């Protein structure tokens, strides 16, 4: 410990690779043919996706009755999955936009990938609101379009806010991601010898010539977009939390939900990014670019947001007691000790207890351990949404209507399918686009910045 020099910022990229080396390294997966392992991985994710497609096909054919939903529990797995996946997306925007505004250079190595994850996660999430409805073919009714029936949507419904929040989020995330990709497309265009690739890269690089002028505009646009995306990080999950908070159901009707959901989203998103990056850096030899130090910083954020989530759990209990409202009090006692006690304690142990291990630097920097904790965090966060959605509904005001919710195989199939879709998209991403931003990494290599020393 004593040997650390806190006056000097640790370099984001280990060693001092030349710019050419960085280019070669990052674009290597794009230049080489996919190997056997890649195909095996893709086969697995596509199988998962296939299971989901079949489960979904059956649901469309027979109806939502194939799921576990019942009369008090109108929302089950699909809504749980929706909130979970939207949450996963949040880390990406936080890393690419908020950390960018805060000038956190360590984000440069992981931003692209995290942003990609955001888009895929939101795409995955976006499926659920459409499929969970009873008549998905009428989902277009949620869009306010002028029609001869003078029918209009109901702007007091949080579900409608969701429509706008999620679609805005997806659009902005996509544009932000694409703008960031433009210089890299140009680099790839310049490198490639393949004609077809040249055409594609040329098209998408929009005539980028790495000129000073281009960079100037680029930096400004990127900054503005980052500023634009930043509030979305907060607003999207806030609005998703309104789906619950605006209702009058005990356990849902809580003002703490917006910050609590945002913290939870960042929490699970970081865990997911950390999990996947551990593989990426190993497989593509990015250990120098995505350093253990970067991973450690992410773990610190996991620790922070995990503690916030833990605080929220405690505060919910406190407020339930403090409110003096009996149904509210019962809902929370019921969560912890009722029929869903197993789900609740999975949630608490995964989200509150295990991340606390990150107080130890040794654990923060040991890859297998952090990987396991990251997985647990995601399990815990999925269960958090399950606990919120299902336990509150299954036992609400009238004891006569209480009923236990148990998911079906179809529910499980759709959940597996959502992971299949997400990872399939990720795998395709690793082979088609640079998963690390070439331009941004070049900018943080030691020696690439102007320094006073040499003058």
């Amino acid at each position, binding site marked *: 410990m004593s040997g650390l020099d806190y006056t000097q910022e640790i370099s984001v990229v280990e060693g001092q690779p030349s710019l050419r080396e960085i280019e070669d390294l990052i674009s290597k997966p794009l230049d080489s043919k996919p190997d056997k392992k890649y195909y095996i991985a893709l086969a697995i994710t596509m199988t998962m996706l296939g299971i989901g497609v079949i489960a979904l096909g059956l649901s469309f054919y027979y109806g939502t009755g194939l799921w576990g939903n019942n009369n008090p529990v109108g929302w089950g797995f699909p809504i749980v999955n929706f909130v979970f996946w939207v949450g996963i997306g949040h880390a990406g925007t936080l890393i690419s936009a908020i950390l960018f505004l805060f000038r956190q250079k360590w984000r440069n190595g992981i931003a692209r990938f995290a942003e990609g994850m955001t888009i895929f996660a939101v795409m995955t999430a976006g499926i659920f609101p459409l499929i969970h409805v009873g008549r998905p073919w009428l989902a277009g*009714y949620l869009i306010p379009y002028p029609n001869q029936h003078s029918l209009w949507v109901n702007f007091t419904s949080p579900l409608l806010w969701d429509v706008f929040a999620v679609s805005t989020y997806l659009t902005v995330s996509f544009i932000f991601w694409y703008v960031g990709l433009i210089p890299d497309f140009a680099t790839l265009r310049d490198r490639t010898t393949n004609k077809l690739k040249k055409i594609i890269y040329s098209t998408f690089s929009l005539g980028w010539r790495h000129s000073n002028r281009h960079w100037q505009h680029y930096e400004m646009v990127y900054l503005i977009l980052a500023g634009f995306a930043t509030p979305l990080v907060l607003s999207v999950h806030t609005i998703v939390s309104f789906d619950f908070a605006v*209702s*009058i*159901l005990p356990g849902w009707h809580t003002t703490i939900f917006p910050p609590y959901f945002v913290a939870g989203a960042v929490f699970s998103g970081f865990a997911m990014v950390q999990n996947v990056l551990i593989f990426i850096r190993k497989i593509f030899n990015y250990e120098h670019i995505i350093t253990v130090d970067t991973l450690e910083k992410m773990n610190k954020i996991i620790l922070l947001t995990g503690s916030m989530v833990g605080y929220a759990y405690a505060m919910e209990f406190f407020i339930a007691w403090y409110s003096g409202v009996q149904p509210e009090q019962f809902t929370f006692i019921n969560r912890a000790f009722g029929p869903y006690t197993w789900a609740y304690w999975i949630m608490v142990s995964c989200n509150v207890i295990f991340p606390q291990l990150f107080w130890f630097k040794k654990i923060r920097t040991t890859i297998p351990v952090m990987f396991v904790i990251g997985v647990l965090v995601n399990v815990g966060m999925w269960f958090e949404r399950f606990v919120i959605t299902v336990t509150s509904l299954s036992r609400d005001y009238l004891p006569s209507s209480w009923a236990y919710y148990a998911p079906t195989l179809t529910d499980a199939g759709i959940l597996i399918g959502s992971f299949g879709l997400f990872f399939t998209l990720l795998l395709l991403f690793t082979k088609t686009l640079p998963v690390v931003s070439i331009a941004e990494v070049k900018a943080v290599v030691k020696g690439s910045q102007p320094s006073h020393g040499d003058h």
Partner: protein
Amino acid sequence: MKNGENKKTNNPEFWKSLKEYYNDPEVLKAKANEFADGVTDDFDPSEMSRVSRRKFLALLSASAAFTATACSDYRDKGDVVPYNVRPEGVLPGKANYYASTCSGCSQSCGILVKTREGRPIKIDGNSDHPVNKGKTCAIGQASILNLYDPERLQQPIIDKRKSSWKKADTEIISALKESMAEKKEIALITHQTDSQTEKKVLDDFVAAYPNTKIYTYELFDSGNRYDGWKKAYGVTPLPSIMWDKANVILSLDADFLGNEGNYIEAMRKYSSRRDAVNNASFNRFYIAEAGLSLTGMSADYRFRLSPDLQLEFILSLLNEIVSNDPAMRTKLNSAAFDLIFRNSLEKFAEKSGLDYGKLVNLVIDFKNNAGKSIVYAGDKLSPDVHYAVNLFNYVLGNNNLYDYKSVFTNRLELSDNKDLKNLVESMNNGMVGAVIHYDTNPVYHFPPELDYAAALKNVKTSITLSELPNESIAASYYAVPINHYLESWGDSNPRVGIYSLKQPVVAPIFGTRQKESILLTWIIGKTEAYSEDIYHSYLMENFKDSVYDKTDSAATFNHFWNTALHDGIISIDESARPPVDFDMANINLLKPSTASGGFTVILNKNYYLGDGRFSNNGWLQETPHPVTKVAWDNYASIAPNTAKTLGVEFGDFVRIKVDERNVDLPVVVQPGLIENFVSVELGYGRENSGEVANGVGFNVNVLLQFNGKSKWIINNAEVAKTGESYELVSTQEHHALDDESVKDFHKIRGIIKEGTVSEYKKNPGFIKEHDHELFGITRGHEYNDVKWAMSIDLNKCTSCSACITACNVENNIPVVGKDQVGRGREMHWIRLDRYYSGTPEEPKVSNQPMLCQHCDNAPCENVCPVNATNHSPDGLNQMVYNRCVGTRYCANNCPYKVRRFNFYDFRDHFADAYYQNDLTDLTNNPEVTVRSRGVMEKCTFCVQRIMEARSESIKDGRKLKGSDVQTACQQVCPADAIVFGDVNEEGSEIQKYREHELGYHVLEELYVKPNVTYIAKLRNTHSSEDV
């Protein structure tokens, strides 16, 4: 040219070019010719297409129309045949009502059948009927589904092969004649009909085939009651009870509000004394029972008492009363006095474990209300108990409450056990040539000791008349299909002097005949003798002789008959003479039963399936049991402590063993039962009886006791755990009553508010004492015209569930089946919630019908993203099915959880689309949308009835009044517990209920402002017990 002439003076004000400004000749020339040379050459009409503009447009629209039709999903939806000549009295879109008589059970309630374009769609009570007064029960409501049951027998079946009437009739008639020739017996097995004309047909049959013997049975009969009455008074006309005049009621194992006697009448009269809003003085109701019945749930005091101890109980009570009352003592002879004197209430309390203090209170109540109280024993108890009860009522002068103006008629006399044994014996000996099951199912119903099915194999000709397939049909050579009662003529004579007529409201849907006509054909002995009118004219003939002549009516018979058919009812003065004196001679026969070891088993009638005849009716199978809330099964109800001793829980199998017979049943742990006791319902475990009925529940008829004082009460049974378990489905979770974490939630949360009569008298506003002032932050809806609201009086509601089936029929509610009920997806728009408080041994039960509350601040409305559920100007919370996407957010946000979601297309989900076919579709009310999958639905306050009343009022040019509308649940409610109307109408009934001090809203503090007012239940306990 004009411009050219004045070119200097008249420059154009607007110019396009300088050339124009200076009026260049070229420009002027060009201007004069609109089209330059050559431009118009192409427009030579002769060279143009022959298609005119008109024709072009016509072709365009035609092809558009073709394209549109070709693209549309056109399926052949069947032929639409308009009326060529409109039938008389049928106005399309307008319902016709015909009076008839319900045949769901033996009580023969008067009904009005609502038909639309010639098809019956709903059964309402006939308010002119003096017994049921416009009310019906759950069975009566749902019985319409049997008419449209796709599995009805459609033509005669001979040896499992479809055949024709001609062949069947010919063969059967020759078989009957053959039996006559061979001097073999013809056994005709029937139920206890109350129809005088049907009895005459049977007599005629015996006359035509003198070898015939008529056997009569019921799975559940009132034989013991009649025996007890006969022993007491010698004569048999059994009076009905004036429940409304009784200040104190003690029921001994009698489910008189649930399924004994005419419970419709009993409910009306009983609940008229539970009417807090109209200031009725409350009766006090005690019940002593072993199980927990529907009736028991309403009692002010429940004594948990084994059926073996009932006789001792009533005698001990009598002793306590008589011993201090010399006047009453004089009514007893010495033998009676000796017998009674041997019983002591104190000792009895010790023996039975009942609370002595409460028993003393009961005695005091009886003393204070001698002549104004009633003891009523259940049908299942032995004739001895009935005799003792009659004695008790006689001594107290409670005979006053016997209504000799409304006396039960004598039905066909039941065959006794000896007769049935002899029958089986002669069948086995080959002495019986033919057996006719006259709309009966003895193969299923007869006790196993008879081994009837085996005996039937020794009979050459076996004939079963039935509407639906059943066990007896499967075992018979001939299956003869009969009409549903809505396709039949008939009469019934439920009370002396009351004749209720049955008329067909629809022509027979299949090739069925009515059972009386079939017998008449066989009586005449020629197949050609049958005509559709054969029984109709027979009935008229009989009425002319036996009824019309008694009326000394001035009208012609035809006029009399038509009036009778129109009204559905004829009342003539035939009131029976009250019996003179109590016959005390039989007192010596009373023997207190010996205490039994082992378990006691009671076999009960199911509230909705009757003796099993409604097992193929999905609506009735799906109506949750009023106490346990289990649907689609029967089970063994066992007390919690007994269950603990046996080591079983909800759904575990136990084996009930009586002598050599045994049956395995799943357990329902039921609070409020005596220990070492099992209560089971019959009517389940059907075989060969149709898709819906087959394999539902367990056949417990094997336990029926042939010898003994009661067929249904079995002593010395062994009960043991088998180790296996079974999935029972119920519409309410079974929370352990002693689970502290969920105990008494219904009271804590203000769902159920109740108190006692004395509490109410002391402080009429007691239920509102802890209310807070509520205020909202939003602007409420304004209701300037009509505003609909409902009130439900919990004092009156007995949880009979008639409202559930009435709503099912009115609103086209689908049957979802056992698996879906198990998943909590039953579709009932109104449900009956049941809550327990107190201890598992002595639970207090609170019932509450729960339906959409049509809140003013409806939480469902603001969360629907597409406005599919919204608010009407008259206060209805509306559901627009077409707009509904199915997010289910509304259901999540409904604190009452009354919204129902179509998780499947429930029309075709149940049993391979059992109820989706051309026939069953006819059951649907055409005024109510049939909902598709993925759509939310809920109670609409019968908006179709509101709209009908509204258009009527507009047509008549008057203001719509609240009383113009009756919801289906309100209309059927036998207890008159439901009031519906316009709250803005000054002085309306609903206003009175809404503003009553006992009126409250469920979950008031949520400020959703519900519009269903519940009248708090008052228990009429002794004021000394008030806390």
